[in-house]
């Protein structure tokens, strides 16, 4: 075996293997990260990137393999060991205590004390110094739940720096950011790099990889499928390594033939859970046979918008008109009966009942349809027959209808939801994040299904955080920012940059005027 000098490397992970019940999450993974570089780990969802980093950070322990930090073998049994080894991690889902202040979150676990008491003054001072040094401005006394996502991410980064981290792991840091915020983040990262920090970036966005990293480790299905220098590769090659075949970057589709307007939203105002307005006087319309894509960064009112349209959230003011009827105050049930389908953003929260068998999940929302019940009793035989049919038609695996929802894979769960929503012949489909967390095969399937629905004349409102998805599916694109539509365009008349600017709060007119 080749002898490698580990001391050049900030991080070496050697032969890391981690098994979860039924899954081999990491299969003898090797990772070499040089001191002072920005190193990307790319791969599809489920490739094992986060699992690998969680082991580096001590959140879970490897079944096999060794970890060397700066050439020295380290036992990292828990985050404390990681922090001691000067490793810090910014998680994809922020690890912030939302009711505590910024200061309290940052110093948590390493609190400065004065006698028996927690020294808030000193903590505040230290944080001010840190944020000045790295250009990460944030109000130390703000309560986390009141801060926007971008700010929260800064808190996360300061948190890591406060612990003196030399090695920073960032897990999908741009997922919740606008392109502009992303650029700011990259500036910060480069600045950190200049000050001698090593950065490991988990992502699946190849343009980001190309933009700021020095080297890349590609993972697929728990294994490393390639290690390359960024300068010596290109997105297509990386994509190939990621998915193991040529990827279809665009979806094949005919030109749309929109019909009459089926959904109109007028001056809609909706509040989010904490009582703050999340949708602020938004208007839009969807015609039969077209896909209207809503582009936006997470947390700009998309969730509230779709929930209001489907009846899951109260409307403060404004109108929702469906098939010419004002449905603003209709129950979700009534909307369903009128022909509104909904593929929800969070399939485990809204779309599926994990503890119900598949055949019960197939009738969710239609259980009192006369096809499945006589008003009191369920027609179990009929429900099962219907479910068998759908399982076959949508190729749900394993094809067992009495399996519990929780025992299906994410892709198959999504298939169940899509199948169910299509099966009731909706006229409008509100689709939110339909491919989040799915593998390429499933994504392709869902995309094709959506296109074929459109071609059958169904109106589709598509909300997605993936700009690529919006571009490849939509007939019209609307960009949303802080609960307002910033502009409308079509994929062939715009660029991702332009939409990105809208997503960051610039009005389309203003952008085009400036240009």
């Amino acid at each position, binding site marked *: 075996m080749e002898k490698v000098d580990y001391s050049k490397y900030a991080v070496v992970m050697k032969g890391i293997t981690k098994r979860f019940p039924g899954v081999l999450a990491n299969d003898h993974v090797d990772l070499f990260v040089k001191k002072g570089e920005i190193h990307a780990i790319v791969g599809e969802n489920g490739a094992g990137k986060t699992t690998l980093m969680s082991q580096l950070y001590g959140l879970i322990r490897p079944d096999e393999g060794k970890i060397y930090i700066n050439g020295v073998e380290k036992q990292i049994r828990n985050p404390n060991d990681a922090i001691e080894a000067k490793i810090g991690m910014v998680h994809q889902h922020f690890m912030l205590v939302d009711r505590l202040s910024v200061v309290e979150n940052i110093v948590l676990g390493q609190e400065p004390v004065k006698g028996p008491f927690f020294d808030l003054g000193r903590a505040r001072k230290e944080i001010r110094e840190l944020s000045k040094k790295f250009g990460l401005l944030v109000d130390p006394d703000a309560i986390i739940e009141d801060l926007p996502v971008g700010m929260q991410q800064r808190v996360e980064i300061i948190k890591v720096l406060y612990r003196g981290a030399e090695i920073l792991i960032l897990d999908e840091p741009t997922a919740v950011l606008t392109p502009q915020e992303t650029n700011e983040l990259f500036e910060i990262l480069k600045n950190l790099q200049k000050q001698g920090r090593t950065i490991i970036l988990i992502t699946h966005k190849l343009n980001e990889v190309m933009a700021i990293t020095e080297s890349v480790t590609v993972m697929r299905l728990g294994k490393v499928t390639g290690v390359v220098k960024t300068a010596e590769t290109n997105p297509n090659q990386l994509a190939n390594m990621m998915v193991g075949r040529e990827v279809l970057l665009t979806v094949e589709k005919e030109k749309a033939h929109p019909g009459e307007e089926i959904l109109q939203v007028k001056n809609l105002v909706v509040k989010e859970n904490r009582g703050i307005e999340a949708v602020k006087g938004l208007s839009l319309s969807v015609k039969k046979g077209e896909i209207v894509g809503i582009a936006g960064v997470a947390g700009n009112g998309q969730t509230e918008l779709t929930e209001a349209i489907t009846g*899951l959230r109260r409307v403060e003011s404004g109108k929702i008109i469906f098939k010419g009827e004002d449905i603003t105050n209709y129950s979700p049930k009534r909307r369903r009966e009128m022909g509104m389908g*909904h593929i929800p953003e969070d399939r485990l929260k809204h779309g599926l*009942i994990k503890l119900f068998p598949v055949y019960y999940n197939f009738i969710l929302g239609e259980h*009192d349809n006369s096809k499945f*019940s006589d008003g009191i009793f369920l027609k179990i035989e009929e429900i099962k027959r219907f479910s068998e049919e759908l399982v076959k038609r949508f190729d749900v695996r394993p094809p067992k209808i009495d399996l519990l929802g929780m025992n299906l894979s994410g892709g198959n769960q999504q298939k169940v939801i899509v199948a169910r929503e299509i099966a009731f012949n909706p006229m409008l489909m509100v689709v939110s994040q339909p491919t989040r967390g799915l593998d390429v095969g499933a994504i392709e399937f869902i995309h094709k299904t959506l296109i074929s629905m459109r071609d059958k004349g169904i109106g589709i409102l598509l909300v997605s955080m993936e700009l690529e998805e919006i571009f490849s599916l939509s007939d019209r694109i609307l960009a949303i920012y802080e609960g307002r539509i910033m502009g409308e365009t079509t994929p062939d008349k715009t660029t991702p940059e332009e939409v990105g600017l809208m997503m960051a709060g610039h009005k389309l007119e203003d952008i085009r005027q400036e240009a």
Partner: protein
Amino acid sequence: MNIKKYLLNEKVIISLFSVLISLVIAAIVMIVIGKNPLVAYAALFYGAFGTKEAIIDNIMKASPLILTGLAVGFGFRAGLFNIGANGQVIIGALLSAYVGTLVGAYPFFLSIPLVMIAGMLGGAAWAAIAGWLKAYRGAHEVITTIMLNYVATFIANYVVNGPFQAPGGVPKSPSIAYSAQFPNIMSVGATSLSTIIFVSLAAIVVIYVIIQRTTIGYEVKAVGFNPYAAEYGGISIGKNVVLAMAISGALAGLAGTTQVVGVYGRYFGALSGSMGFDGITIALIGQNDPIGIALAAFLISSIRTGSNQMQIAGVPKDLVVIIQGIIIFLVAANRIIKTIRIRKRKEAEA
């Protein structure tokens, strides 16, 4: 149904283990205080099954326990912890006793259903308060039902010491009309086997069907498993929380009613006893399954019935409460038992 599969079901094993472990712990306690557990358990068994009276008594005790067990279990199905069955028993019993005193002029086929409906409505309404507070005011049902238990007790005490008191100054209601009383199947000595057991058996079937076969059951379960998805599916959470509490309360109210129409013939003293709390034990042991609940109710009633005989053998009655506490504890922390089993399996493999 595949019986073998049913018996090997993890939940069933957890219940059985919990009961077993608690009996073993109780046996150790008995040894510590110098009593022979074999003698005590033999007495327990004899007290529960040794005589005709014991068996009848056992069935009579199990009848309301099946109902409170179903009540708590149905609540659990909807994701609700109805710790207030006691209060619902009381209100149901009071109302049925009141109606029972009014229906003397009617034939039994009218008065009996009237009284039963009154009792169920009473329990249902009382529970629905907690349901409404949960669904529309966000108040946790554990707190509200505990509070409602106290309020119900005070109401009952007030009523049977005042406006609804039988002559003679004893805190009990007047006797209900003869036509509203359930007939006995048989009597051995002073112990009578009343037809109320059929009410409980019927309730098992009805609840089983509701849970497994009806849209109500579908909706209630959906709300219990995942309220967000239920709402997404057009199922009203608020309505179903109130409905589930009301059904749960109706069962508890029915338990109270059976005591009025089949045992005492009136509202009488601390009629609810510990039925409500026992219902929790029973629902947990029965794993919220109607048939499991029926079996668990018989288990608890056997322990309760037998414990009187155990007292005579010199073991304080409080031991039964300890046994129940341990069972609930172990079912709650079912991972303790799972861990023990896994450890054993590993040892066996090693």
